[in-house]
């Protein structure tokens, strides 16, 4: 087992934990908390895709990492994959946006209905 697979597995475990929380806990805030765990897990999953054991971060601040100083080419076996990192950055920011909006919704729902139980949130159905 390499490190990447470990992170991947941990991410899946987080997603499952969060999903269980979102499916089973009746409190709206806890449901969103579950989503938050799912989201964190997904970040871990994405990032783990770019993991390559024994390589450094894709920040080329040392000329030693350059394979050719004139063309500024970098040794492709020296650094980890930057793409998943860029994706996770985006995903994290989007995640916090969604979470914030869900929480404002809950705050407002609580103002109006005075409850945080998802089962009482059933005016619209059928």
């Amino acid at each position, binding site marked *: 087992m390499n*490190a990447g697979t470990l*992170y991947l597995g941990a991410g899946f475990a987080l997603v499952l934990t969060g999903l269980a929380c979102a499916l089973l806990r009746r409190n709206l805030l*806890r449901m969103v*908390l579950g989503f938050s*765990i799912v989201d964190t897990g997904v970040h871990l999953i994405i*990032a783990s895709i770019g993991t390559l054991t024994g390589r450094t971060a894709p920040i080329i601040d040392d000329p030693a990492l350059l394979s050719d100083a004139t063309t500024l080419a970098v040794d492709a076996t020296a650094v980890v994959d930057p793409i998943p990192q860029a994706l996770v950055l985006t995903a994290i920011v989007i995640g916090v946006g969604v979470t914030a909006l869900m*929480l404002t919704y809950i*705050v407002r729902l609580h103002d109006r209905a005075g409850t945080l139980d998802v089962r009482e949130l059933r005016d619209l159905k059928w």
Partner: protein
Amino acid sequence: MIWLDALVCLLMIVVAVTATAVKNLVSAVIMVGVVSLLVSYLFLRMGAPDVAMTEAAIGAALTTVIFLIALRRTGEDR
């Protein structure tokens, strides 16, 4: 080193599961924040310092704060 990582992963999952089960919502929120911090450590280990910073600042800190605000405003923080 991978054993340390494995340990962190295990700890992270235990904290996450506890967060879903714990009675007190404030503790639950904080635990999720801790999970984020642990994930942030893992990012650092993966060679992703950018992501680690972001996860720590936004995933762990900011998200926890807005959760706490929401808890406060719904009176669930007691």
